[in-house]
């Protein structure tokens, strides 16, 4: 019985999600009258200040996600602050779309608890041109709106313009993104390590950087599985049942 129940509900949930993913511009599954006009307004303002800067945009549960041209990233900060009236910087960060290394297998010390991610590279809302993206969220404290901005960065030489001169709060966020993803922020006053020691090498949040804790020490859950005393007893049982069932199955087919 417990095996049967997840299957229909599992099937239901992706069906709902597919329906919600299909219409990009309007939020059909959750009818909210407010977000759409603000998104239209925000996009019109961006278009007015930075023509042809927006490559793609998407509505993610009422949140506007805008993907802009790499060259427009530096100017976008000023536009966001003045034209969009977004005086508040929530965060600046990066994302690595590379498929995660094989998890739950040999690479991750047999960690069977780790979720298995798809092995092909797919991109999120508003798409991406390559592996790395920098994204930020700005908001307006007066107009109560905001948007997430994404920009593609080059994989070999990841670099974008810094936002520190417009939003001083971008300082630490950019330092974090730089050390975690190796994305350089041109014009940042002092790109130095924020969390990690100064001599640290590598970019820990990149997908090809292994989770060192699992490399040093195998997943403890594995020990539990190996140490199960019932296992050797259950094996002959299975074998016995299998041996006994073979002729009956064969008889059924005949």
């Amino acid at each position, binding site marked *: 019985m*417990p095996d049967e*129940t*997840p299957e229909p*509900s*599992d099937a239901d*949930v*992706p069906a*709902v*999600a*597919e329906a*919600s*993913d299909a219409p990009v511009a309007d939020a059909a*599954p959750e009818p909210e009258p407010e977000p759409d006009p603000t998104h239209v307004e925000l996009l019109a303002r961006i278009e007015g200040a930075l023509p042809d800067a927006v490559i793609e945009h998407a509505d*993610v*549960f009422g*949140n506007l*996600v805008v993907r802009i041209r790499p060259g427009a990233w530096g100017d976008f900060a000023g536009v966001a*602050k003045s034209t969009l009236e977004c*005086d*508040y*910087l*929530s*965060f600046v*960060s990066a*994302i*690595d779309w590379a498929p*995660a290394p094989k*998890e739950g297998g040999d690479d*991750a010390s047999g*960690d069977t*608890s*780790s*979720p*298995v*991610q*798809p092995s092909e590279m*797919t991109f*999120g*809302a508003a798409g991406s041109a390559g592996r790395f993206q920098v*994204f930020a*969220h700005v908001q307006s*404290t*007066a107009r*109560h709106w905001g948007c*997430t901005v994404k920009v593609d960065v080059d994989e070999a030489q990841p670099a974008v313009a810094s936002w520190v001169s*417009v*939003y*001083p*709060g971008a*300082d*630490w*966020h950019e330092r974090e993104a730089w050390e*975690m993803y190796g994305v350089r922020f041109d014009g940042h006053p002092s790109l130095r*390590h*924020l*969390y*990690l020691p100064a001599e640290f090498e590598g970019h*820990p*949040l990149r997908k090809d950087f292994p*989770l060192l804790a699992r490399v040093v020490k195998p997943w403890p859950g594995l020990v539990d599985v190996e140490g199960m005393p019932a296992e050797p007893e259950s094996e002959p049982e299975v074998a016995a049942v299998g041996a006994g069932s073979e002729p009956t199955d064969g008889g059924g087919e005949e």
Partner: protein
Amino acid sequence: MSTTDTPTGVPSFELERNAMRHLADAQINVELDTGDMILNLGPQHPATHGTLRLVVRLDGERVLAADPVIGYMHRGYEKLTEFRTYPQITTLINRIDWLSSFANEVPFVHAAEQLMGVEAPPRANYIRTILTELSRISTFILFLGEMGLQVGALTPAFYGFRDREYVLNLIEGATGGRFHPNFNRIGGLKEDLPWGWVSETRSVMRMMLDSCDQFEDLVAGNEIFHSRTKGIGVIPGEIGAAYGVSGSNLRASGVDWDLRRDGAPYLAYPDLDFKVWTHSDGDSFARYWVRLQETREAVRMVLQLLDGLPAGPVMAKVPRIIKVPEGESWVETENPLGQMGYYVVSKGATGPFRVKIRSASFSNVSILPWLLQGVYVPDVVTILASLYFILGDIDR
């Protein structure tokens, strides 16, 4: 040599002895006049909840520049989330801001629910809101007491710890954990409220109102407290916003912005009648005052929620194995320390592909290099205390 060979013998001897006695002081003064002094505040300091190191360059008693060194508690949660399933992650994110753990869970669980198209039942939403507000009360009550400690008043700190314990008992009664409830499930809550909890909460809430009055008399009305906090550490609203300062810290700078009222509707806040408190001064006292009012407001909200608590289940129908469909979701909430947000990217697996954790204290503290310029060393401590950050919330 010529100075010692004065015409009168005895006075010269007296002068020399005085000079010797104050020689140490004289040397320090000379050093301060000529160069700056680098002082290390922390990593362990009583005004910080955790280990924050502050390297300050001093000219005498005045701070010329301050550089916070963070990362002593960096636990790499953004990386760890990529190796865990959704139900496991709520255990992790409990530990971000450990004073209001329950409030940390809410936006993450909400983001996963949004992606799955699951909605928690109304009763679960109300209980979540009650527990979020209780976290706020327990966090702020501790602050209201501890802020006194930072200006040298020991008594309020004991009151703060004592009164917080009543609220923590309530949280423990409902969830089983004082600090790390891990009570949220995707689609609802682990359990319903225990019998008698509602009436118990009502009586504790009345006590909290008394407690707020007490703090108003004892700390906010104290003349010494005024002189130590008024006009100290002023953050103008627009600068605070550009630094990403949020929550009570920003409202104390006159920015009338509260995600419970102004953000995307979440939990039961649209059903509630509450006031968003602001203060125009932006100084340490304003931050204390706003938190004091917000504690009272949270008490009123809990009482409203208890009155309107709907009946019904606390868990929606969700699959036994949580698989979140492909998509992205940004959920932000007004946590006790400020704006807390999760940008969850899912690729249809049992765990997220990427989780960007936007924690309040990180941005609240990033203003320190700007804010501490030109203040006196004793004020550094009161400013740090009034910004009220949790190191786990900075380092994640």
